[in-house]
């Protein structure tokens, strides 16, 4: 069967449009550039879009710094004992101070220690969602979690669903809590009542899931030992694996359609763009 020229052209346009959007899209995260941070043992990473500055916890040098997108350190904010993952919410920065067993927040000039319902042993990550705060309690293999109604902590050491083996980061997104369960090499998802909903990435060969980021586009997990970033849909399907230009990544964030991945050994931030 032969198609007339106008019909054929129209069909081609439709096919092109169909192939360039939706699930068949060929777009993916592509390497853009690397931001050098020489001498910085980068563990935690957040981005202040208003000031266009990174918040960086420099674990090796026991300090919190701010740097711009060229890698210039513009402020040495404060000394901490092994600061780890960060959470930047509504203008307030929360710091998990691993070496001092405490959580602190910085609001303007103020630095405040958060009273904790139970004592953590090496808090590695922290996040808040307005009414709740969660802490990855590394050596106790549990999540410290509380809100105005009280202490909701949960988890024990183990490898079953709902157990943890050295959790390193927590992230809230749309009432759910996401945990980087580092040495079970997976991400776990819990509902607002702390019921286990899903385990993600357990069969994907991760070796130390050190950091996570979650938004409406999916779940981003750093695979430290393999120097990879694994990106999942909210259904748990592996969408993309980034294994270039990373060197022992510990943290990942997304802002302005860019992915920023902190390289601990590489002493840099790798930037990826969606295109």
């Amino acid at each position, binding site marked *: 069967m032969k198609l007339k020229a106008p019909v054929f052209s129209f069909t081609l346009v439709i096919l092109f449009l169909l192939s360039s959007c939706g699930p068949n899209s060929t777009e993916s995260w592509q390497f853009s550039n690397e931001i050098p941070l020489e001498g910085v*043992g980068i*563990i935690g990473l957040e981005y202040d879009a208003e000031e266009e500055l990174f918040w960086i916890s420099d*674990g*090796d040098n026991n300090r919190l710094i701010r740097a711009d997108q060229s890698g210039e350190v513009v402020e040495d904010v404060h000394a901490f004992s*092994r600061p*780890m993952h960060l959470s930047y919410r509504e203008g307030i920065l929360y710091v998990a101070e*691993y*070496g001092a067993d405490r959580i602190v927040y910085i609001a303007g000039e103020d630095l405040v220690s958060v009273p904790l319902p139970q004592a953590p042993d*090496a808090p*590695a990550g922290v996040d808040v969602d307005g009414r709740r705060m969660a802490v990855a309690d*590394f*050596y106790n293999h549990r999540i410290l979690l509380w809100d105005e109604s009280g202490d909701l902590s949960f988890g024990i*050491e*183990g*490898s079953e669903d709902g157990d943890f*083996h*050295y959790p*390193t980061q927590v992230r809230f997104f749309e009432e759910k809590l996401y945990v980087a369960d*580092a*040495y079970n090499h997976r991400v776990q998802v819990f509902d607002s009542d702390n019921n286990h909903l899903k385990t993600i990435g357990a069969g994907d060969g991760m070796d*130390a899931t*050190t950091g996570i980021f979650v938004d409406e586009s999916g779940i981003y997990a750093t695979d*430290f*030992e393999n120097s990879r970033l694994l990106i999942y849909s909210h259904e748990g399907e592996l969408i993309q694996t980034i294994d270039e230009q990373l060197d*022992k990544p*510990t943290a990942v964030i997304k802002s302005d359609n860019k992915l920023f991945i902190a390289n*601990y050994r590489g002493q840099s931030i790798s930037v990826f763009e969606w295109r």
Partner: protein
Amino acid sequence: MKTIILIITTLSLAFAVHAQSDHFTVRVDGLGCPFCAYGLEKKFKEVDKISDIKVELQKGVLTYQVPASMKMTFDQVEKLVDDAGYTTESIKVERADGRVEKSGKEGNSGSPTGALQSETKLAVSGNCGMCKDRIEKAALEVDGVVAANWDVADQSLQLTFQPDKTELEAVHRAIAKKGHDTEMVRASDKAYNGLHSCCKYERELQ
């Protein structure tokens, strides 16, 4: 002048303290990420009087010093490393009196020249690389054991030993004490339960 005297006094005291310290170098298995390294450092910092703690992540080496009066033992070091979630590979200590002591592979491997040696294979249960280190280390600490090589696929330990010095039953007991069942000695539930979750091999029902 007072300032100079103060500086000299301070330096003298610092030198004296340094000279009265035992210097430890500990090789640790599984020290992969900064979370691990800082954790190990944290557990040692929690012990009173330990100072100058340094962790070299890439080499998997921890160094520190303690006052010689503490007489810190290898067992105490291993317990601290174990509490931090890792396994000791070897320990070297330079004591304040000049003696050097070594443990583990660093101190016990190699064949004494001319010694009569035998080889045997023992069935030993385990799961991973950490198990391998633990099993081999336990075997090497038994008198007369020259070499030990555990194979995860085969679940067996290839042992080279001096028959005039080694009681094989002692090797079985030493390994079981660390939580690993052997063909001759079953580990206690307490020792088995103390293993890392990744090391918890499937046990045969008793």
